[in-house]
């Protein structure tokens, strides 16, 4: 199972804090995006086309990052640590 976490505004779009998907032993962001699209087409597109920052096991993912069974993926909208 792959856990996908939604934060900040994305939690509102997803209507939940996280999802779990069974995509076999190894998969890609593209394939994960297609699974996420079933929860929300907008979020699915964000993952598939990497429109926002995505982390895999708390490291920022690249285009060719391989996702393994058991990994934790997170959709990270732009950060905002205060307006100072």
């Amino acid at each position: 199972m792959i856990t996908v976490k939604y934060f900040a505004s994305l939690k509102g779009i997803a209507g939940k804090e996280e999802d779990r998907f069974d995509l076999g032993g190894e998969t890609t962001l593209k394939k994960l995006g297609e699974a996420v699209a079933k929860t929300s087409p907008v979020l699915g597109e964000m993952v598939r086309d990497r429109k926002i920052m995505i982390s895999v096991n708390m490291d920022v993912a690249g285009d060719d990052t391989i996702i393994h069974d058991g990994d934790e993926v997170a959709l990270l909208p732009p950060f905002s640590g205060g307006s100072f």
Partner: protein
Amino acid sequence: MSTALESKIRIQREDFVVTDEIEAIKKVSRNIGGIVTFLGTGRELSKGENITQLNFEHYPKMAEKKLEEIREKAIQDYKIIDMIIIHRIGEIDIGENIVLIVAAGEHRKEAFVACEWAIAELKRITPIWKRETTSNGEVWVQATP
């Protein structure tokens, strides 16, 4: 005992006391000559709108990991003696403390540079998000550099 001694990287709901953190970092070395502190507080105005409350959310573990990366890089790259980084989450009122960075160096120059770099880097790479409450409702805010 103060929480100040527990960890030099903290994300917490409760407020912090700047003096306690400064005293904690002073204990690290008798050769500290300059301590530069950045304290971010909740402003009332944001893009012309009156804010009544702020709410911070973080990605647990990843946010702490990024703060620790910032701390280690600051110590190494700017040759400071030590750094403490604390970020509050949850509901924050106007005027309340949000974030604290304490940079201690032998001299002031490296402490200023390290502190200013660390807050910019915190905003850039740390998964923390802010929701502003105004008379028009609540909105998640995107970073301003």
